[in-house]
């Protein structure tokens, strides 16, 4: 994957860039808003990771400018601002996702992956499939190996989100934001509880586990290799 990183803090950018390169991605890095905007306008990237507070041209302005110019590349906005309005502002400017500093690299990586595969597929597919697990979004029905599985509405949404990102790591925060619309960190084990209930229904009676815990990162639904 070809990723553009616009971040002025050398330590953070080194951390992000090295991490992404270790994961096998090609990373172009720019430290100033103006150079970043130039690179971003050129296009050709799969994902852009842009810091919100930059010298000269700030991150929001870059996103607005490239969106106005018709560049549709997914953008992940990074920010040290944890304000209640900041996320909304970022999304309104045209960013696709928003991550508050400090973050674990695994969180950033999961989100970059989710963004990269966002537009072309999965989103409008009626039936999602992972191995013998099948989720029909119209009929709101889940079967595994042809056997019907009854799910609560929230369990259905959780499984749907996991399956839409099948093969990818989905972090706890991503689940909270996308499944429950919680933009804060609950003090109780909401995600863990719901995952374990989902597992009990989806995996327990079957030989092969489809919902995997990725240690230190999150969860993923996949057929193990």
């Amino acid at each position: 994957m070809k990723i553009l990183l616009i971040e002025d803090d050398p330590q953070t950018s080194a951390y992000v860039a090295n991490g992404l390169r270790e994961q096998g991605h090609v990373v172009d890095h720019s430290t100033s808003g103006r150079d970043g905007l130039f690179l971003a306008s050129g296009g050709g990237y799969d994902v852009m990771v842009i810091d919100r507070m930059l010298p000269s041209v700030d991150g929001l302005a870059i996103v607005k400018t490239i969106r106005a110019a018709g560049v549709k590349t997914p953008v992940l906005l990074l920010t040290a601002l944890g304000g209640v309005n900041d996320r909304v502002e970022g999304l309104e400017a045209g960013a696709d996702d928003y991550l508050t500093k400090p973050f674990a690299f695994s969180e950033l990586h999961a989100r970059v992956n989710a963004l990269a595969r966002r537009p072309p597929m999965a989103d409008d597919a009626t039936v999602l499939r992972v191995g013998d697990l099948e989720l029909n979004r119209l009929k709101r029905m889940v079967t595994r190996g042809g056997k019907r599985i009854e799910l609560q509405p929230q369990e259905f949404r959780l499984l749907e989100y996991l399956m839409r990102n099948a093969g990818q790591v989905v972090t706890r925060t991503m689940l909270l934001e996308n499944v429950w619309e919680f933009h804060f960190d609950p003090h109780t084990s909401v995600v863990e509880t719901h995952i374990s209930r989902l597992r009990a229904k989806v995996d327990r009676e079957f030989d092969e586990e489809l919902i995997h815990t990725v240690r230190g990162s999150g969860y993923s639904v996949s057929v193990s290799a």
Partner: protein
Amino acid sequence: MSPHSFFRSTSFRLLAWYVVVFGASVAILLFIVYWITLAALDEQLSDSVERETQVLVELYRARGLDSVERAIQLRAVELRPPRRYYLLQDTAGTRIAGNLPPMKPTEGEIVLPVSQLFPGRRAKPDDPADAYPVVAHGRKLDHGEFLLVGENRYRAVKAQEAIVRAFGWGIAITVLLAAGGGAVLGVGFLRRIEAINRTTRSIMDGDLSKRVPASGGGDEMDHLAINLNAMLDRIQVLMESLKQVSDDIAHDLRTPLSRLRHRLEDARVKAGSDGEVVIGQAIAELDAILETFSALLRISQIEAGARRAAFSDVSLGQIVSTVSETYAPVAEDRGQRLEAIIDRTLSIHGDRELLTQMVANLIENPISHCPAGVEITVELRQEGGRPVLCVADTGPGIPASERERVFRRFYRLEASRTTPGSGLGLALVKAVANLHGASVELSDNHPGLRVTVRFHAAGAGGARTYPARDATGVAHGVAQ
């Protein structure tokens, strides 16, 4: 501005006083005129009667009784009011001449009521011109005869009537003018007050750039507008510096903390199994610090009210039921029971994200602070047209003396010091409730704790009025 609000306004009260005081002074003035005029007319009347008596007495002395009798016969036929009355009687009390019945001779001034003028005919006299009391002057003549000359009070009574009419008109016109003038002044005044209210409302809604319009006339209202604007400028500067400080702290504190976290993460990867656990704990500690710090910033920003600009109509019923459904399995895993009784039709004007967090905090509190076996009840219902959210548990509860204090930042009950949490949960609940003009109240659930959040009536300008702040009837009335 509705008529309802006008009658409750200060200017209406001023206007009413204005009318009363003005009307009263006009009334007093007219009353004085009335008395003085009547007194003058009565004095004139008794003067004229006395003079006429004197004329007849002199005639008697010069020409004798017969001349007086003839004079009276000539004079007593006058038809037009005011009418004159005469009586001449001899020593035996028999009438010699005149148009009055004989009476007991009395010297000096006397007043004869209408009934005494025509005895026998009790009711009204035949001629309406006679229907007035008579002021008369009696005199004993030199040879024992009695002479009485009188004139009725026709003029005084007519003057009295005219003055009373003038009275009526005068007061009516005064009240009308006072009311009209006062209303014109009052409406202008009210309009300017309303402009100030509108401005302060939109500022409370988060638009800090608004200012009160000044007419430039240099009057007291202008001074008020100028002072308010100066105060608003100051508030705006303070709010902006709060935002600046938050941003600076965010940037200058979070950036190094981010670096620290990144280094720890790197170290964890490289440390091997021994160091991994320790470094993992260090990261967890760091995350807790960052979380507390974010929560503090968040509460300050909510309290600053900047968020109100983004309010929209949200389904409170849906938020509460989603959050309850989310937490029910969590409570179950801890051996607790969460029951939700929710009126899903309720909605308010507010911020979905913050309301979600508020409800989550309210439900998480009993889940994390109560032991297994408790029952948690989440109830959303309508009470007097207002949505009321109630989260009750059957746990240990909070002593009455500590109930107010738990809303303070970092305040933690003795019993919950060992459980994880920042001590900011209820402070955030309170901040979100305040932002929505809702009240939060803790009470005893016998046993346990009951938290009640009372919102405004949906649709009835819920987020438009802030009853805790608007003490004046004007602001409340015009918001309808």
